[in-house]
């Protein structure tokens, strides 16, 4: 990109020559970013947290390996190994850092080396730079922690300690920024709230513009998708501006690839659905009517997850015959749930509830006893919440109370369970006027909250597995295609070992066995599952891109690069990888579908991802018992989501395949393996 035969100016210089289109594009892009500034910041915070965790894990590795050696060969060897591994880690870190750092010593050093007339100047300069960086990091670490110089691992610890410090600094910085930009999110729940309560005159208070929660929610979700698609369009626009104004070549083969993809309707369909899925995952707090924090992680926290609903002071029950009928059927079930599962948690609430049958507290409404027994009634003040859409006629209300009651989501969830009898299906309000676009689950949670946050889980698993597995596969395919021989044979052996064990069995086995490992903590096992999938699937991907990479290795330009004395790694990166990356993408999108199905299947069976992290498969398992009742939606809706996303991923894979290489005969096998589970 930066240089070519015709025009050796850098992109920066080319933009400086003709700044207008780039400036226009950038200003709008900045505006778009500003619109969602708060959300972006919280996203960055999330990334920082993940980075801190990763560093923590990495820091444990040298000691762990060293410890293993120490237990076998004695402590001296152990220390030695620890130090060597630490040094290797630091060197790798320095290598990455030197690629990221804006200013490079190597660039300055190269002319110096050239001047002194040494050979392979650039390479030496680069390595020198990395070595210097390694030493610098190590020294900084040593100085910070002041450990005895004998153990280098202390240095790594120091680095790792200093990184969280950096992270914490960054955190405070971000919080400051967030303070400034807290209102800078057009899709925030604060700007368009959907948790409101009814007012006595039939309107709504606390929701966006006084609309009903359903509309407020719909507007917010529409806004999210509008914003996402505008951003996507703007990125596409930016690419076009680059192509028209700044790219040196008028045409590249990639233009044709993109054109083919745009004309591939099936592939485009897949792309759009996948994009919407990703948006749902990224904007999960905005898409879900109730956030996961309030609903799933701390439903009983009075500070964090309480909300207000309007309880009409009259007697709503007599008005709502329809509800009465439904609730009567469910009486027994609900009672058992109350007395059994939730006993410990609801405490006082539950006491009142079981007393409902005998009604010592609620005797003011004698004729309502059976209703309270059904578990719909809530003893808070002895009155029942307004149920569903059947709000009482406002004129009947002559009470002097406001009727506003504050309750936690946890309490409310008990009475909004969809268990066949009491059922809050798609597009309905629960008894507390909480809008449930896709109904509630059998534990009373909002379905869409689970789905939206579950898509996050799915995305984390899929991306971890595919990026890691794809990276391993790409690296190995380059190495084996370039060197062949022994490397190839060893890789074949390793991949055959993994492949010969059926994937699902192996994933199941590993996820059960590693269930107590510390890696299983983040996201209740989602990250671990991603790693396991990466381990199980790299041989498949490696196998499928082996053909193309062997072909590329035979090409004349690779030979030419070799004979020019280019370093093998550079040859692989510049002249081989771009051709293989496309094939990796095909298999990645096909395998991603399989991974989504498998991880859902695992959590359906109760392994893999444990509660409370929401997962699609567990929703299906939850709703299994209620599928032939009125609460059929609990299992059905997540299933439809899975089908849609997997289908879209398959379509996307087809599209990419046809775009990259219309003649290619790849993808069928992977598609077949994606379907299992």
């Amino acid at each position: 990109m930066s240089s070519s035969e015709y025009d050796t100016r850098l992109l920066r210089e080319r933009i400086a020559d003709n700044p207008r289109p780039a400036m226009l594009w950038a200003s709008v892009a900045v505006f778009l970013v500003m619109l969602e500034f708060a959300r972006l910041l919280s996203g960055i915070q999330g990334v920082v947290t993940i980075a801190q965790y990763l560093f923590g894990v990495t820091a444990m590795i040298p000691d762990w390996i060293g410890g293993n050696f120490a237990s076998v060969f004695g402590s001296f060897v152990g220390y030695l190994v620890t130090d060597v591994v630490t040094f290797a880690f630091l060197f790798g870190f320095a290598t990455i850092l030197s690629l990221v750092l804006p200013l490079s010593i190597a660039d300055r050093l190269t002319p110096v080396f050239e001047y002194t007339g040494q050979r392979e100047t650039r390479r030496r300069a680069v390595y020198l730079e990395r070595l210097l960086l390694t030493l610098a990091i190590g020294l900084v670490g040593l100085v910070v922690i002041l450990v005895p110089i004998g153990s280098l691992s202390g240095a790594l610890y120091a680095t790792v300690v200093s990184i969280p410090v950096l992270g914490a600094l960054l955190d405070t910085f971000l919080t400051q920024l967030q303070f400034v930009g807290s209102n800078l999110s057009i899709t925030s729940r604060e700007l368009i709230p959907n948790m409101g309560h009814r007012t006595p005159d039939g309107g709504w208070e606390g929701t966006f513009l006084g609309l009903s929660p359903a509309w407020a929610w719909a507007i917010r979700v529409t806004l999210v998708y509008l914003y996402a698609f505008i951003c996507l369009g703007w990125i596409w626009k930016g690419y076009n501006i680059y192509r028209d104004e700044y790219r040196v070549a008028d045409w590249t083969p990639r233009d044709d690839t993109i054109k083919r993809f745009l004309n591939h309707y099936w592939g485009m369909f897949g792309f759009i659905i996948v994009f919407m899925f990703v948006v749902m995952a990224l904007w999960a707090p905005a898409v879900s009517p109730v956030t996961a924090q309030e609903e799933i992680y701390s439903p009983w926290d009075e500070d964090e997850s309480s909300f207000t609903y309007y309880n009409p002071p009259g007697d709503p029950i007599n008005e709502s015959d329809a509800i009465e009928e439904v609730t009567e059927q469910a009486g027994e079930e609900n009672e058992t749930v109350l007395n059994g599962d939730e006993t410990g948690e609801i405490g006082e609430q539950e006491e009142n509830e079981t007393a409902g049958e005998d009604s010592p507290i609620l005797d003011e409404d004698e004729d309502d006893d059976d209703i309270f027994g059904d578990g719909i009634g809530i003893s808070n003040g002895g009155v029942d919440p307004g149920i569903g859409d059947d709000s009482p006629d406002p004129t009947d209300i002559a009470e002097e109370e406001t009727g506003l009651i504050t309750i936690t989501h946890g309490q409310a969830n008990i009475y909004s369970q969809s268990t066949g009898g009491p059922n809050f299906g798609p597009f309905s309000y629960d008894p507390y006027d909480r809008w449930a676009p896709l109904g509630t689950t059998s534990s009373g949670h909002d379905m869409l909250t689970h789905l939206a946050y579950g898509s996050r889980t799915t995305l984390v698993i899929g991306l971890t597995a595919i990026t890691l597995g794809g990276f391993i596969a790409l690296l190995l395919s380059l190495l084996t295609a370039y060197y062949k021989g022994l490397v190839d044979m060893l890789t074949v052996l390793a991949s055959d070992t993994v492949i010969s064990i059926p994937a699902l069995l192996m994933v199941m086995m590993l996820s059960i066995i590693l269930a107590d490992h510390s890696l299983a903590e983040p996201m209740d096992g989602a990250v671990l599952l991603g790693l396991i999938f990466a381990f199980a699937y790299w041989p498949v991907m490696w196998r499928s891109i082996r053909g193309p990479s062997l072909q590329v290795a035979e090409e004349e330009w690779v030979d030419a690069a070799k004979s020019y004395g280019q370093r093998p790694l550079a040859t692989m990166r510049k002249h081989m990888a771009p051709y293989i990356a496309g094939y990796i993408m095909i298999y990645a999108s096909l395998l991603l579908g399989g991974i989504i199905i498998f991880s859902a299947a695992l959590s359906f069976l109760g392994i893999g991802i444990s509660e409370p992290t929401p997962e699609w498969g567990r929703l299906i398992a939850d709703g299994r018992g209620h599928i032939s009742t009125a609460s059929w939606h609990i299992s059905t809706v997540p299933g439809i989501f899975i089908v849609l996303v997997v289908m879209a991923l398959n379509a996307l894979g087809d599209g990419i395949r046809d775009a990259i290489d219309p003649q290619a005969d790849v993808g069928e096998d992977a598609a077949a393996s994606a379907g299992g589970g």
Partner: protein
Amino acid sequence: MTFLFIVLRLGPVDPIAARFGDAARAGGDADRMREQLGLNDPLWEQYLGFMYDLLFFRGESWVTFGGQSVREVFALTAPNTLWLGFWAILLPLFIGIPLGMYAGLNPNTKGDYFASASGIIWLSMPNFWLCVMALAALRQTRGGVWLGFDVPNITSIGFTFDWYTFGPTTESVIGNPGFDWLSVSDFSLHALAVDIKLILPAALILGSASMAAELRISRTAVLETINSNYVETAKAKGVRDRVIVWKHVFRNALIPLVPVITNEAFLLIGGSVIVEAIFNINGLGRAFFQAMIEGDLPLAGSIVFLFTVIVLALNIFQDFLYTIIDPRVGYDQ
């Protein structure tokens, strides 16, 4: 196999805890049990023993089937899985390939679009979800569900469908095949029908993914061969369409299907765990699932090893099939 040992024995799953419960990890019973199972032996001895047991299927189920030998467990569960696998391979073959061939012979027609689209959707459906849906749907039919449509005031077309009484009457949607019909003395068609009916929904779902794959691939294969020169030549010679389809198109289209069909075994093995767990079929997959959860090391290892052997054998069988279908492929290059 070594991998299996490392994962199973050195992993954190404790068979004693699985058998006695977490609390009894240190009691006297637990110690005796440990001794009996050989968990106190040196690691290398355990390793050798494990390998030996694995290779010859001599192990003993520690927990799941308390004390039974692995062979007994296999004898108990393998027939169910085989029966399931048999139908799960057969059904897709006889549904997927004809549909794919039809779509390939009539490309870009409504029928083609319908077959292709339903194949793609079918492929994307998770098996476990299909199982749940199918069970719910079939259970709904108890007592009879009327399928059909009314033509107002004139007539109604349709029939009452009850899965329980459809064909041979069964008590439950799920269950294990009894294999009563296998006995030589009195071959009972009814028992056979019952067994088939019990396994049918599970097999159909288990084979769903491969069915869709077969549909897709047979469609492309037929499309490719039908546009090839030799088909054109045959047409020019005046060979009848039926002969062209069966002799020239079908046989050549089978070649790319062979790996798909053998790959099915792969899917079936993975899928059988889920399908058997949901349909309560007492097969190898379910045994594996329980053995895994309960830390039953030898059983789980043996099942995985058995599956691995099956997969390897199928790969060899696949190469063999190639030589039959495609004479150009020979043993000696």
